[in-house]
């Protein structure tokens, strides 16, 4: 517990002060890490707490990114309108896909969520008339929040915007996992049949968790489209689903802090590697392999065991 609070304090201070010491490029990397931390935390609600390993979070990430991209380039630049539309579309899609995916559990669930997410990817890549295919939708400016006097054009100011949404996500998800609802999710993960026998509507619990996770994945997608100022089919690609899963396993599942640690390790690593070699996907592949072979109990798991070990 003490390690945990210590970690949180260090992490919080570091996050607030970081842009003062870093250039725009490094701040950009941290912004991306925060975006993926939002995505990974939301997946952790499903994977770590509810025991539903979704390999399809790219569906909601990509959908809200495209909705914001389309709204911005075709309709309105109003941040709050686009934000609302993006989140709503992610939530609605999760409500639809959840009905289908929750027919299965465990690794079959993983396979189904992967297939469903590819519907979105297929639409993004082949629906040229609307999404402009592989070219994507460029020219999406940084948001203007209206009531705030400053702009988010600089790397640092946009970083703080993402940080604010990151903190909101962390607080909301933390409250959810500590609530009776969240505890019921853990119970369902450990023994769904018993929870059903105790009178819980297990399907409804999982369904709601699925929609919440999808909505927060949509939030990450919105941040990502404003960060990149372009949305392409890659925003709905498989790696957007797989990377947060890697981050959760590396950091340690069912902790919220674990996925954040994972994101802050993986994102900077992949960004730095991509500077040195154009074949950075090989390095990413090796990271997947090595983490799964040697670090699959998660960093938090290792720390916890160290802390509990006598002497």
């Amino acid at each position, binding site marked *: 517990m003490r390690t945990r609070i210590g970690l949180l304090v260090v992490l919080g201070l570091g996050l607030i002060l970081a842009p003062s010491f870093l250039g725009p490029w490094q701040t950009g990397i941290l912004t991306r890490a925060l975006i993926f931390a939002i995505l990974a935390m939301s997946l952790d609600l499903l*994977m770590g707490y509810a025991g539903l*390993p979704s*390999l399809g979070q790219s569906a909601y990430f990509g959908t809200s990114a495209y909705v914001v991209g389309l709204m911005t380039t075709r309709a309105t630049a109003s941040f709050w309108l686009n934000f609302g539309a993006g989140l709503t579309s992610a939530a609605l899609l999760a409500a639809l896909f959840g*009905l*289908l*995916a929750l*027919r*299965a559990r*465990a*690794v*079959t669930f*993983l*396979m*189904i969520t*992967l*297939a*469903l997410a*590819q*519907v979105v990817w*297929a*639409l993004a*890549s*082949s*629906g040229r008339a609307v999404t402009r295919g592989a070219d994507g939708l460029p020219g999406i400016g940084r948001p203007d929040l209206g009531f705030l006097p400053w702009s988010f054009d600089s790397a640092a100011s946009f970083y703080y915007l993402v940080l604010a949404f990151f903190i909101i996500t962390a607080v909301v998800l933390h409250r959810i996992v500590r609530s009776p609802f969240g505890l019921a999710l853990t119970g369902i993960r450990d023994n769904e049949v018993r929870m059903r026998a105790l009178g819980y509507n297990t399907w409804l619990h999982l369904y709601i968790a699925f929609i919440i996770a999808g909505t927060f994945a949509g939030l990450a997608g919105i941040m990502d489209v404003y960060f990149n100022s372009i949305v392409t089919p890659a925003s709905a690609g*498989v790696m957007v689903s*797989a990377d947060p*899963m*890697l981050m959760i*396993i590396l950091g340690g599942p069912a902790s919220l802090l674990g996925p954040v640690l994972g994101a802050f390790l993986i994102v900077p690593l992949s960004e730095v590697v991509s500077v040195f070699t154009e*074949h950075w*996907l*090989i390095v*990413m*592949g*090796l*990271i*997947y*392999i090595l*983490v*799964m*072979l040697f670090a*699959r109990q998660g960093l938090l798991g290792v720390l916890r065991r160290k802390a509990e070990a006598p002497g």
Partner: protein
Amino acid sequence: MEHWIIQSANALSFASILFLLAAGFSITFGMMRVLNMAHASFFFLGAYIGMETLKRSHNFLLALVVASLFMGLAGLATYRFFLRRFSREEEFPQALLTIGVLLVASEVVRWTWGGRVYLPSGPTFATGSIALGGLIFPKYRLFLIAVGAAVSVVLWVLLTKTRLGALVRATADDAEMSQGLGVNTRYLFMGVFGLGAMLAGFGGVLAAPVLGLYSGLDWEALLLAVVVVIVGGVGSFYGLLVGSLAVAFVDTFTRWFMPELAWFTIFLPVALILAFRPHGLMGKPQ
């Protein structure tokens, strides 16, 4: 009417490709609960190795043999060095590890062969077309149908009529029990894994003259394999057969009628199946 017959022949030849591609994926998933994403890489790499062999030897059969052998070995190695280290409950780490293997293989192919599209030729005895009952069919498509039918018969005999097949089915039903009864499940798993990878490599070489070879084909192949397994149902020979046929027919005919919606339409049957028959057309509830 003739268009319908010709499109059906196309669908059958695509079903042959899907069958070869998905066989190993489906069987290892049913038997070991391993969702092997790298299975698509066996198909993908096998196709490139076949193309290189063909370029040097001008012998299509040799290309098939070489690619199958290499991919069989790659499958054995993937199981022996990676997947064997996991316990049966570690399904998600296993799946993610195989994504890593897929990424590495994918990038190595792009590094070696570049980003261009290749269209290798088929064997000389199956080039050109043939007139059958007043209709003209490309010979290679008919050749694919014949190979697909032959392999599915062999696989059916292997799985349902032999001792090995009985062991595979018993282990798929209850791995612990069959281990307790003296089956060396590790060797069995490794053998089945190698065999599945071999079939995928074999299928990759056969598919290349039809689908073409390009970077990104591996991800597409993965999705096709996933869709076949979801539609047909996990871990049964008939599920594999029915899944391959259903996906091939839906895909071929929707591409014919609605070319704009290609790729998207392939997922419609997935949604329908999940809504009405969540265990697949041939699957049993678990």
